[in-house]
């Protein structure tokens, strides 16, 4: 037992090693380390609101190399990615269905055609997902953990308590439809509910704002606002609730929480697709960009708005998350032979269009 004075760099290196990552390869504020830190925090804190998990990580990184005030938004994006992939689940709280909280996703894996296995889920109380010898083979990239498959890997993973998810089950997406049809569904649902009382603390996505700067789109309702908006509202101790609201002269008249009914999927999945439909119908569709990659046979796909989990999972399976391009919310390295299919999927399901104007962001 003893006390040793250490430098911030030494703390960062120790922390990276404790997270099971290579301190030579990644630093403590890298996307891989942030994802690992969030998983560790969730393993001790769930069920909890996302802000509680993010704050716990942010507090421990304060003062370490690479820490800036912007780290919180990186943590928010990283946690969204963990929810999308299924490492954590956003579910109704057990003692109050109005609250939504994060729970640990079950230990699981998905086999890819390439022979890689995607590892998913978190064990409670800081327990490693897989045994030590497998853990040494895990390849972490951004929010993903991958393991190269061999003949016995699936059997090993099952023996260690991971459940194999079939790729088509894991990648299940909603049906394709026109943006107007999608919006009309929500308009009808909204019309069917009665007027709500005043809702405090509502923040909404400004449809007139640039869709290429997601963080900057959020604001409080204004007197001039009218119509249907994607919004969030605070809810007790749980996560901020995603909702669709009807606003008249700046006042929220009625709203429905997302997900509708008792769906297990995260509310964000519904909200982000609806916002994409609104943006498309407003003539300012959300964008993607494709550019050449330094890796032969691949291109870089940049996305500027968040996408639902079922869309992110497709990219997680066929592509590789990479350091995001300037202005992008996230970027993937996509093999050229997969690119067209993925782009078509994003266009059909999310009504995205390819960015043609360099000056747009």
């Amino acid at each position, binding site marked *: *037992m003893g006390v040793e004075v250490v430098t911030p760099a030494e703390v960062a290196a120790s922390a990276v090693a404790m997270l099971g990552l290579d301190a030579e390869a990644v630093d403590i504020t890298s996307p891989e380390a942030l994802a690992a830190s969030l998983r560790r925090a969730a393993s001790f804190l769930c069920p909890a609101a996302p802000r509680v998990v993010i704050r716990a990580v942010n507090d*421990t990184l304060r003062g370490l190399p690479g820490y800036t005030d912007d780290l919180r938004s990186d943590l928010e994006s990283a946690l969204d990615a963990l929810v999308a992939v299924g490492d954590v689940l956003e*579910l109704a709280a057990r003692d109050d*269905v109005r609250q939504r909280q994060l729970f640990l*996703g*079950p230990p699981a894996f998905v086999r890819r055609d390439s022979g890689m296995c995607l590892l998913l*889920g978190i064990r409670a109380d800081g327990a490693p997902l897989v045994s030590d010898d497998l853990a040494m083979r895990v390849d972490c990239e951004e929010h993903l953990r991958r393991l190269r498959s061999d003949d016995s890997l699936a059997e090993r993973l099952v023996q260690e308590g991971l459940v194999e998810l079939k790729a088509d089950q894991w990648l299940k997406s909603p049906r394709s439809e026109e943006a107007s049809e999608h919006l009309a569904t929500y308009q009808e649902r909204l019309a069917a509910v009665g007027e709500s009382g005043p809702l405090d603390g509502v923040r909404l996505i400004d449809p007139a704002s640039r869709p290429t700067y997601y963080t900057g789109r959020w604001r409080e309702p204004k007197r001039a606002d009218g119509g249907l908006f994607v919004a969030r509202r605070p809810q007790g101790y749980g996560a901020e609730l995603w909702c669709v609201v009807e606003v008249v002269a700046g006042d929220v008249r009625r709203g429905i929480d997302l997900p509708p009914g008792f769906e297990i999927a995260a509310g964000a999945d519904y909200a982000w697709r609806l916002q994409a439909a609104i943006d498309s119908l407003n003539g300012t569709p959300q964008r993607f960009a494709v550019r050449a990659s330094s890796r032969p046979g691949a291109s870089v796909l940049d996305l500027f708005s968040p996408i639902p989990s079922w869309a992110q999972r497709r990219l997680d399976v066929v592509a590789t998350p990479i350091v995001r391009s300037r202005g992008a919310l996230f970027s993937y390295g996509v093999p050229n032979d997969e690119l067209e299919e993925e782009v078509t999927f994003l266009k059909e399901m999310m009504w995205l269009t390819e960015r043609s104007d360099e000056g747009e962001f």
Partner: protein
Amino acid sequence: MSAAPDSDYREALTVLQRRLDDHFLRLKRERAEAAPGTPVFALEHGLTDAELALVRSTVLTAVKRGDLPRDRGLPFVVYAAEVGYEYSGDEYWQTFADRTPGWWLLGDPARQYMRNQYRRFRDNYSGATPVGPWAKKFSIICWPITHAVLPTDLQRHLARLLYDFSRLLTAGLLSDPEALGQRLAAQAWQSSARLQAFAQNTNLLGQVATALLAGEDEDESPLLLPSTLTRIVDDLSKESETRRWLLDAKYRASKVRTHGLQRASFSRPELTRRAADRPVATNPTLSVREDSDGWSLFLELPDLVSLAGRLPEVGDEMAQLRPNVQGVQRRFGSGQLLYPGQQVRVQQWPAVDRPLIQLERGSELANRMLADHCVLSPGPSWLFRLRDKNAGVEVRGKIVRPGHRYLLVLPSPFADVPTWMTQAWMATNGVSGYLLAVPEELDDSTLSIIRQFGIAAVMDVELRPVGVVAAAWDGEGAAEWLEGEEALVAIRTSRAVSTCLLGLDDQPSVIKWPTDSNELLLRLNDMAPGRHGLSVSLMTEEGTPVAAGTLEFAIRPPQLSPTTGTPRQGLLLLPSPASPTLDEVWDGRAAVQILGPPGGKARLAVTLADRRGRALTQPRQITVALPIDAAEWLHTFATQFRGQSEIHKAYEQAETCVISASAPELGTLTLRCDRAFVPLRWAFRRDKDGPVLSLVDNTDGVQAALAAYDFARPCEAKNVDLPPGEQLRWPDGGLVVATAGSMRAASVMPPFVRHLDDLKAAEPQLPQLTKVSADVLHVVQFANLWGSAALPDDPIGAIRRNEVLQTFARALTWVLAGQRWVRAEEAYVGRENGSLRSLRDAIGVEIAYQQQLASALADAAPVLMQCDVSARVTAFANELAAHARPLGVDGVDRPYAEFLLRLISEPGTLADWPRESLEALIRRAFDAPLLVRAARFVVVTTLAAQDTGSAFAGWIWE
């Protein structure tokens, strides 16, 4: 050596005795030298296959001739241990007799001979002694089974336990088999019933586990003979999954061993011991949340597995009994104290002078341990840091910082509220709450007010975990890290500081503050498990102290996740009791709650398997809507699984039932329920000649006494003569009871139905009862005998048993509630000329309070019909509190309400209540027949529409 001809067996016995005597004496000497205090096992005989074959043939010949020589017992000891190594389940003597023709004929003296030989082995060769409650129950077979070291049917379960536990291994545990055994035993409660029994001998468990975890490249383990260890490992490795679990556990152990040795050179043993002497606290975590009702206290059940490990008898009670948490309305299921992490809302602030958590009908020891280990932080004030608008966690150190927000909870209102305090509306009763917005600048008057509450203000210094998220952190001054992790701490100050005076567990050190930073980072090396304290005093260059702070922290072992999940996951199985047997699940004495997102769906599957783990049925799967509470479980299991013919047919052969719940998004959880592992039980089967019962007797050889009771005369015993090994047939059926010493096994024998006439049954008749406690107690005992008897899966047997149980309840109703009530009830049940109104009036209409009670119960009936039994008890207690004061009910007396409802629905469930208090409650019932009528009213008006397997549909008591 070759096989012994009949005539030479005595000579062979002599040779084998000498050979084994030499071997075991040498082993005893070597073991005493290499691992003092570690016993020798008969399985460590070191014989070759040929020698072992000779042992077998020689023993078989001797037994055939009825020759059990006292001075040549070692071959018998080895033979019996070999049978123990290979047998499975609980039929040791059956297996032994099957392999040893003539054994049954030798009768009880042969069993005694075997025990005596093992005792001689213990005395002569430092042989192992069976210990634990299991060994007391199975007082003879415990010897050969203990000396089998690790019977084959336990190997898979132990490998899994070692694999799961390997994360908790430390260098200290690997060098201390006794401690390892205790820790493993504490985690074994969710494993198979046989492994749980094995784990009661913690020394043996630790010895075997340490030997199995020895590294490949290390010297031979001194704890087991190498050939015996190799044999066990080879057998254990026959299955790839089991081999993998053991390899992974060994790999982890090897890493820990290497790392542990490195760390040991830096450790200071005296400090390590001191910290370890202070076990990690098992107090519940407190938090507050605000909703539309105001601020509520929430309490998270602590991890008490370590307590259960240190005191197995307390652990057994925690696994079986229902916990009560002071101030919490929610009724927990029995055994749920072993499922930590559940958060519960507290309605009434707990009184600090009363135990926070107690077990219903728990022993004095168990409840005293809980009272000592689970305490609320001392009052009179409680402080919660609010980092969110509507939620906060307790600051146990009771410190505030300038600029932070808190909820302060006080036992009574505070008169002179300053501007930075505002009253908070408390939803939890019994306290007053205040929101504190602590000013940035603390003047003397502010500090004075803060101190009045027993709170200290800390300024200019902050201590916090840094680098990675700690296992727990209250945001102010209390943290936890896991064993084996580095504790990294940041000390931050806004003052100009030159020196930092540190005290780690009162060991001082002085550190120069870095010149270019307002933060000092520390790594706390090699902290032993237990509680620790770090104090900090910051000094200027002139030596003036300018700030001080503390960090209280614990180093604790990680919690293992049971296969039933944890509250941190989206899906969770919560069985009651904690580790139910197959019989309990089948009979509806155990329930399994399935918690998950409301509205979500899960696949629920039940599979029955034999003792070799082979599935007897295809898994039956149904889709259920989440969540499933205990009452829904009982109904679902009865209708969807127990009632299904395939499952129903396989039940009697089944040794294990695996219940699993799964959803693609939420994961898969499993609960394994084994047959009860008891020394005396009835085994049921059916053939063309009707039902058959045979007695499985693993007691210490005392001939079991048998009695039988007709369905028509359920209190009149008849003698039964059943020679050992014979089977019992009884076409009329009834109840059969075997008693051997303190053991008792009862089973319902279903009637053999050949014709429709066989379905006719006479109404059960009881002796005339009088209004005395002794008669009521008599009925309670008989009702318990019938109600707790094993019920073979037979619908006619179930119907007949229910008729008997209903007769007991009706008889008590007649004697306690009066004839007029019985007539009204018969009219209501028969719907001839009875109605709910006339039944209500039969409770009592003479005085206003009687009418009010009767009306309230009649109004509540439709609602109570939808509730589980626990909620009905609570509602009944509330109505009695509201309307039955003239009859001596003072406030909400839940135990009394529960007693009344049990008494007239399933009186047998009162049999294990303390006799003295039961007699007092019966006297109260005699004095207030109106309350008995009221209770009976609740029972008959809330019968479930569908049969749930209980005497009164829907009234299933845990």
